[in-house]
C-alpha cells in the first residue's frame, strides 16, 4: 500500500485565488485559474513564480474556462460568466478581455472550442439552447441548436468536425452541425444527471459519460441502447475523461461530496480496479487537464486544481501509461531490464493506439456490471455487502508470513489460516449484512486449530474488541483483526519457544522486521495516527562544544529536488492504509491482482506498510518489482536518476540496498566565538593581574583573535596600580567613574555579548573582579583584607542584633569585617559572637538599617570604585557559569574551577531561624520566652538564675546561656561555660 504515494511533481498553492475553473493551454506553457476577482495565469514551467493576474469585474464566478486548442490561436481563451462568454487574449505576459459573446438568456453550463476550426466555439446553457459561435463575428451565434431541455455539457467530437455531443439530465444528444434542426442521435445514458461527457480521443463514435448515479458508462452512439462498458463507483462521478495515451481514463468525484480527494486512473480495458490513485489534494479536485506532451518526452503531465487552492502537476511516465495498456499479469511476470522497458511502452502504445477504435467493446463485462449496477443504491443489500467486502478484500494488505486468508465475498466470509511453530489456527470470519456500519463480524475457530482453548478465548476477545472498535467508526476491520491475531500468536509462541529471551531480544533476530511490525500496525489507524509527522531523513545538530553532527539520506537516495516539490507532512501520506482513500470507490476486483499491484515484491511487503525509506528508494528494488513500484514513484526523479538506474540495474539482485546514510561529524569550532586553545592558555592569577592580562593578550594573539588581544591590553591598562581607587571617598573620583572606566568596560561587555563570546565575557568579568575584590557579602572568604578599622562598630547601636553564625556561616554578614573565628580580637564583640539569638525577628541585613550618611557614602564609594557594575553581578556570574560549563565539556576542569572561584555564591535564601527551648519548669517544648503550657518564662540565665525575658544568648553546643550582658561579661574573662558543664562554649560554637 505504501506504493500509493502522492506522485505529484509540483504543488503550488494559490491561497487567495478561490478559483472555480482551470484550463491548460495547448502549448502546455500556461494554465489559467479563474477566480471571482482575478484570472491567474500560471507559468507551468515555473509554477511557483508569482502568477500574473487579469482583473475581472463580475459578481459571478467563472463557470468554465478553456484555452483555444489551436496553436495559431494559443493565446486566446474563453471564460463563461453567467450568461456571457468573455474572450481573453494573453500575449507577452499581459492579458485582457477583448470580446464578449452574449446570447444566452440563462447561465452558461459549458463551452468547448472546436478541434478543427480555431474560430469556432460551442456553448451550452440551461436556457435549452446550444450556440455555435464564430469568434470573428461575435454579434450573434452562427448556429443555434434547440434542445428543449437545458444542457449540462457540450463537447465537440475529436475526429469529426461536424459532430458534437451535449448532455441533458440523463440523456446525451449527438448533433451534426450541418443538420441543426434536430439531434442526430439520442442516447438515454443514465437515470440521473450526467456531470461529465468526454469523446474518445481516437474514435469518432465512442464517448464516456459520468453521472450522479455512481457510474461511468462508455458508449458507441451507433448503438444507443446498450452501453459498451460500465465503471461502477460508490459515489457520484463528477468527471471521467480519457487520457491522451491509450486506454486510460481519469475520474474524479462530485465536489459537493467532499469525501474523496484523489484522482483515479483506470484502464478502460480492465475496470476492475484503478491502476493508480493520484493522492495528495486535501480537498476535492475541481478540474484536471492534461498538459500537452513535451517534445521528446515520454511523460504526460496531469494538471489538477482543487478546492484546497493548490495546483498540482503529476507526472505520468511511460510505465504508468503502460499499465493502462497491457495486462497486469504479464507485466509482473517478465523480468526485463529497465532499458528495454522504457522503450517498450511507446511501441505498444502506438500499435494499440491504432486499433483503439473500439477496443473497449472487447472487454465488456456484462455479468459484472449488471450485478453491481443493480445494487448500487442499497449498500446494505446482499450485493451491496458483497461489494463492500470485495472492496475491502481488494484493499487489505495481508502478506504476512505464515498467514493465508481466503476471501469469499459472495458468502460474506473469509477463512484465515495461520501456522506458528507447531500450532495451526483456522479462523472463520463471517460478516453481517450491515457490515461495516457498526456491525462486527463473528470469529470462530475451526479444526484443525491446535491452540489451547484458553488462548482461543483470549484471542476471540481481542478480535471482538478490535473489530468493534473499527466498525463503530464504520471502518473495515479485517486487516487489523488479522494483524492482531498474528501478533497474539507470535507473542505467545515466542514465550513458549524461548522463555529465556528478554524483552529486548527479538523473537527472531534474523528477520526482525517481519516480526515486530504487525503489533504496531494493528493500531495504525487510530485517528491520532493520521497526524504523525513525516520523519526526518536528514538533519543536523550541534553537539558537544564544537561539533556539528549530521545525517543524511544515502547519496543513492538523494533527491535533486525541483524547488517546488514538497516532502509530505505526515507519515500517513506513505500509505493509504488507514485513511481509506479509496473506500468511497467501489472496486470489484479480485484481491489477487490488487494485492500484487500495491505491495511490490512479496519479501518487502510487510515492512512496506509503513517504511519511510520506500518514499526515497523504491527505484532501487529488484527490477521485476521495481517496475510496479516505480509506477507510483518514479515521477519525481529527474533524468539523472534514470541513468543511474540503468547503470546499476544489472546487479540489483545481489547487492544489498543501503538505506542508512552516513553520520558525519564535523568540526565547526572555527565558527564559534569561543576557542579551546584559549581556554587552555588563559590564566587567572589574581596576585598579578597585570601579568595575567599580558599573558592572555599573547594567547589571544596566538589564535588570531587580535580584537581580544587588544581588549586584554586595555584590561591591563585599566587594572594598573596607578588607577587603583583610594579608600577615602573624599580623595578623588574613582577611575571607574571615568569614561574609560566602567563605561568602557560596559561597552566591551556589550560588544562581546552581541557576538556571544562568553569566553571573553567571563574572563573579563573574572579579571576585573579579581582586580577589585568587592566588599559585598558574596565574595569568597579569604579575599577580605582586614577592613575592620575602616568600619566603625556600627552594630553597637543595635544591641539586639546578633549576627547569627548559624544562618550564614563564617562569611555571613555584609559588613562584618572580621570572621567569627577571631571574634575575640574584634572591638565589637557583641555582633560577632557565636551565641544564638532568641528573638529572631530582629534578624535582618545590616545595610538596611543605615542611618549615618557617612556610611551610606562610604558604601556608595565602595560601589563606585568597582569597574564592574555591581548591579549586574548575577549576570556576570552567569557568564562565568556558562563558560565554566564549556570548559567542563572541553575537559579543562582546573580552568573551570579557576573561573568559578570568581563567581559569587549567593547564600541560600534565608528562611528564618527560630530556636526552640525546653521549658525549664515543665520540660515541654516552647518557642519564645514564655512556655505555652505552664505560662512561665522558659529560660533561666546560667549566671543570675533569673528567667530571661529579653535578649539572650546561649551556647549551641551545651545549651547553656543567659542574659546577653551577663554572657558578655563572663566570656570576656572565661572560656568555659558558666554553668560548669565543662563546655568550651567559645570554641564549640564556632563551626
Amino acid at each position, binding site marked *: 500500500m505504501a506504493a500509493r504515494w502522492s506522485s505529484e511533481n509540483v504543488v503550488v498553492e494559490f491561497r487567495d485565488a478561490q478559483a472555480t475553473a482551470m484550463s491548460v493551454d495547448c502549448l502546455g506553457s500556461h494554465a489559467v485559474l479563474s477566480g471571482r476577482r482575478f484570472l491567474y495565469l500560471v507559468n507551468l514551467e515555473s509554477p511557483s513564480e508569482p502568477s500574473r493576474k487579469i482583473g475581472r469585474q463580475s459578481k459571478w464566478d467563472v463557470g468554465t474556462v478553456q484555452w483555444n486548442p489551436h496553436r495559431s490561436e494559443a493565446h486566446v481563451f474563453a471564460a463563461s460568466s453567467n450568461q456571457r462568454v468573455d474572450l481573453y487574449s494573453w500575449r507577452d505576459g499581459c492579458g485582457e478581455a477583448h470580446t464578449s459573446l452574449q446570447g444566452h438568456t440563462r447561465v452558461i453550463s459549458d463551452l468547448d472550442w472546436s478541434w478543427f476550426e480555431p474560430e469556432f466555439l460551442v456553448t451550452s446553457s440551461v436556457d435549452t439552447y446550444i450556440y455555435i459561435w464564430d469568434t470573428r463575428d461575435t454579434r450573434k451565434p452562427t448556429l443555434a441548436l434547440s434542445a428543449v431541455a437545458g444542457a449540462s455539457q457540450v463537447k465537440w467530437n475529436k475526429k469529426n468536425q461536424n459532430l458534437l455531443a451535449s448532455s441533458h439530465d440523463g440523456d446525451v444528444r449527438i448533433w451534426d452541425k450541418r443538420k441543426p434542426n434536430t439531434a442526430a442521435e439520442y442516447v438515454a445514458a443514465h437515470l440521473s444527471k450526467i456531470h461529465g461527457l468526454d469523446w474518445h480521443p481516437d474514435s469518432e463514435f465512442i464517448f464516456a459519460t459520468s453521472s450522479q448515479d455512481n457510474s461511468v458508462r462508455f458508449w458507441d452512439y451507433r448503438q444507443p441502447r446498450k452501453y459498451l462498458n460500465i465503471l461502477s463507483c460508490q459515489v457520484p462521478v463528477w468527471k471521467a475523461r480519457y487520457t491522451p495515451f491509450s486506454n486510460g481514463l481519469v475520474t474524479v468525484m462530485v465536489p459537493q461530496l467532499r469525501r474523496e480527494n484523489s484522482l483515479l486512473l483506470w484502464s478502460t480495458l480492465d475496470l476492475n480496479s484503478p491502476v493508480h490513485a493520484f493522492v495528495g489534494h486535501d480537498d476535492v479536485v475541481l478540474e484536471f487537464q492534461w498538459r500537452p506532451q513535451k517534445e521528446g518526452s515520454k511523460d504526460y503531465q496531469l494538471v489538477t486544481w482543487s478546492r484546497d487552492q493548490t495546483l498540482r502537476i503529476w507526472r505520468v511516465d511511460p510505465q504508468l501509461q503502460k499499465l493502462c495498456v497491457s495486462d497486469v499479469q504479464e507485466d509482473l511476470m517478465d523480468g526485463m531490464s529497465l532499458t528495454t522497458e522504457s522503450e517498450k511502452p511507446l511501441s505498444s502504445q502506438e500499435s494499440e493506439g491504432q486499433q483503439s477504435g473500439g477496443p473497449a467493446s472487447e472487454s465488456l463485462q456484462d455479468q459484472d456490471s449488471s450485478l453491481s449496477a443493480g445494487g448500487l443504491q442499497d449498500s446494505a443489500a446482499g450485493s451491496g455487502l458483497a461489494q463492500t467486502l470485495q472492496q475491502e478484500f481488494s484493499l487489505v494488505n495481508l502478506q504476512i508470513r505464515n498467514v493465508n486468508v481466503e476471501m469469499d465475498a459472495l458468502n460474506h466470509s473469509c477463512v484465515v489460516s495461520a501456522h506458528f511453530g507447531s500450532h495451526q489456527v483456522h479462523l472463520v470470519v463471517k460478516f453481517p449484512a450491515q457490515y461495516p456500519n457498526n456491525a462486527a463480524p463473528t470469529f470462530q475457530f475451526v479444526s484443525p486449530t491446535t491452540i489451547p482453548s484458553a488462548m482461543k478465548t483470549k484471542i476471540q476477545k481481542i478480535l471482538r474488541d478490535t473489530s468493534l472498535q473499527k466498525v463503530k467508526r464504520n471502518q473495515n476491520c479485517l486487516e487489523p483483526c488479522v494483524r492482531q491475531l498474528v501478533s497474539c500468536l507470535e507473542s505467545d509462541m515466542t514465550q513458549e519457544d524461548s522463555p529465556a529471551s528478554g524483552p529486548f531480544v527479538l523473537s527472531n533476530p534474523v528477520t526482525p522486521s517481519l516480526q515486530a511490525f504487525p503489533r504496531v500496525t494493528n493500531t495504525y489507524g487510530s485517528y491520532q495516527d493520521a497526524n*504523525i509527522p513525516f520523519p*526526518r531523513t536528514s538533519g543536523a545538530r550541534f553537539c558537544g562544544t564544537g561539533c556539528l553532527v549530521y545525517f543524511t539520506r544515502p547519496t543513492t537516495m538523494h533527491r535533486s529536488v525541483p524547488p517546488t516539490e514538497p516532502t509530505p*507532512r505526515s*507519515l500517513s501520506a506513505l500509505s493509504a492504509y488507514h485513511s481509506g482513500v479509496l473506500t468511497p470507490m467501489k472496486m470489484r476486483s479480485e484481491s489477487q491482482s490488487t494485492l500484487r499491484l500495491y505491495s511490490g515484491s512479496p519479501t518487502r511487503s510487510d515492512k512496506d506498510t509503513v517504511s519511510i525509506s520506500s518514499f526515497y528508494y523504491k527505484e532501487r528494488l529488484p527490477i521485476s518489482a521495481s517496475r510496479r513500484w516505480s509506477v507510483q514513484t518514479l515521477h519525481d526523479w529527474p533524468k539523472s536518476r534514470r541513468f543511474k538506474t540503468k547503470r546499476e540495474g544489472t546487479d540489483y539482485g545481489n547487492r544489498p540496498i543501503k538505506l542508512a546514510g552516513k553520520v558525519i561529524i564535523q568540526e565547526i569550532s572555527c*565558527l564559534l566565538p569561543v576557542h579551546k586553545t584559549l581556554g587552555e592558555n588563559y590564566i587567572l592569577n589574581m596576585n598579578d593581574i597585570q601579568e595575567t592580562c599580558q599573558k592572555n593578550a599573547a594567547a589571544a594573539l596566538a589564535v588570531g583573535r587580535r580584537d581580544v588581544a587588544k581588549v586584554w591590553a586595555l584590561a591591563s591598562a585599566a587594572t594598573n596600580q596607578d588607577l587603583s581607587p583610594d579608600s577615602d571617598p573624599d580623595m578623588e573620583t574613582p577611575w571607574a567613574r571615568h569614561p574609560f572606566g566602567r563605561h568602557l568596560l560596559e561597552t566591551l561587555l556589550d560588544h562581546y555579548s552581541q557576538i556571544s563570546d562568553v569566553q571573553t565575557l567571563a574572563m573579563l568579568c573574572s579579571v576585573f573582579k579579581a582586580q577589585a575584590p568587592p566588599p559585598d557579602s558574596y565574595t569568597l572568604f579569604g579575599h577580605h583584607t582586614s577592613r575592620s578599622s575602616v568600619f566603625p562598630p556600627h552594630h553597637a547601636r543595635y544591641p539586639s542584633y546578633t549576627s547569627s553564625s548559624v544562618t550564614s556561616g563564617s562569611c555571613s554578614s555584609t559588613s562584618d569585617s572580621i570572621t567569627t573565628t577571631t571574634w575575640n580580637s574584634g572591638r565589637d564583640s557583641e555582633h560577632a559572637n557565636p551565641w544564638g539569638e532568641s528573638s529572631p525577628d530582629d534578624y535582618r541585613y545590616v545595610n538596611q538599617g543605615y542611618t549615618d550618611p557617612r556610611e551610606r557614602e562610604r558604601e556608595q564609594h565602595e560601589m563606585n570604585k568597582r569597574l564592574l557594575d555591581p548591579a*549586574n553581578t548575577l*549576570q556576570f556570574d552567569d557568564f562565568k557559569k556558562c563558560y565554566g560549563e564549556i570548559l567542563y565539556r572541553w575537559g579543562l576542569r582546573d580552568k573551570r574551577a579557576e573561573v568559578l572561584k570568581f563567581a559569587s555564591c549567593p547564600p541560600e535564601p534565608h528562611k528564618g531561624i527560630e530556636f526552640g527551648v525546653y521549658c525549664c519548669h515543665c520540660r515541654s517544648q516552647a518557642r519564645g520566652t514564655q512556655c505555652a503550657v505552664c505560662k512561665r518564662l522558659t529560660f533561666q540565665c546560667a549566671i543570675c538564675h533569673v528567667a530571661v525575658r529579653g535578649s539572650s544568648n546561649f551556647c549551641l553546643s551545651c545549651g547553656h546561656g543567659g542574659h546577653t550582658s551577663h554572657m558578655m561579661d563572663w566570656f570576656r574573662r572565661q572560656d568555659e561555660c558558666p554553668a560548669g558543664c565543662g563546655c568550651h562554649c567559645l570554641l564549640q560554637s564556632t563551626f
Partner: protein
Amino acid sequence: MVSVINTVDTSHEDMIHDAQMDYYGTRLATCSSDRTVKIFDVRNGGQILVADLRGHEGPVWQVAWAHPMFGNILASCSYDRKVIIWKEENGSWDKMYEYTGHESSVNSVCWGPYEFGLILACGSSDGAISLLTFTGDQQWDVKKISNAHTIGCNAVSWAPAIVPGSLIDQPSGQKPNYVKRFVSGGCDNLVKLWKEEDGQWKEDQKLEAHSDWVRDVGWAPSIGLPTSTIASCSQDGRVFIWTCDDPAGNTWTAKLLHKFNDVVWHVSWSITGNILAVSGGDNKVTLWKESMDGQWACISDVRDERINMLDIWTENKTPTMMKPGL
C-alpha cells in the same frame, strides 16, 4: 577550519532519523527506522559500536542524552508509542525505564537542564506532552499535559535553567528561583511555551506565525544575556526566530529567518547560541548567524571555501546554498 573529523557508517538497516553526541562529544547515538538505537564511541576519529539497543517495536524517531552528572543515560522515542530510557551500568546498556503512556507515536524527547534533576519532556502525536521526573529508586513521576497541541505535538525543547531576564531584577542576595520552562511545537501550527507553577504545568504563551505544522522548536542556550531566544521551523518552509527581552517573558517577537522551499525539519543552536543549523526535506544543512545589526545571514555560503565542506555530502556538485539575506 571547518573539517570533517569523522564519518560514521552506522550500518542501520533503514533510514536514520536522529544522531546526537553526548555532552563531551565522545559518543554518538543514532536511531533508525530499523527500530534500533546504536551507540558508537567516536573518540579520536574512531567508530566503535558500543551498543545496539533493541526494544522499540517501530521506527525510532529521536534520541536524547542526559547530562553526565546522572550517569550515561539516553532516552529514545518511537512510532511504537513508547519512550525508553536506557542506562549504561558497568559497561552494558539496559532499559532503565519504559514509558508507555502515550496513545500515538512519540515524536520528540528532550532532557531538562541538569539543575532540575533528571527530567524528560516527551511530545506525542496524541497531542499530549509528558514530563517524566526521576525521583530515585527506579521511580519516575509522570505528569501529563493533555491536549497540549490538538492533533499532535511534534517537538519539545527546554529553556536553559538560567533564564536571564528574570534574574537581574531579583533582589540580590537571594538565590534565583529557577522556573522550569519549555517550548513545544505541534500540528496546530502553534509554538507554545509552558511553565511550571506550584508543581503544575501551565501554558504560558502561544506563538502564532507558522501556516503549517511546526516541526521543530529549539530554545537557544543562554550565556547570561537578558534575552530569551527560540527558533521554530515548520512544514511551511519557514524558520522563525522568537526573542523576548521582557523579564516577565510575555512579549515575544518573531523574525523570519528564511523561507525554504521544502519542509524544515530541524533547528539546532550552537553552544553559545549564536549559530543556528537548519535542516529539512531538501537534504541540506544551512548555518545561520545573527549579525551585529540583528539580521540573520546564512554563513554556509559558497564564497567561503572552508565552510563549503558542508556541501560535500549533497549530491549535486555545484553547491546551491542559500544566499544570505534572502
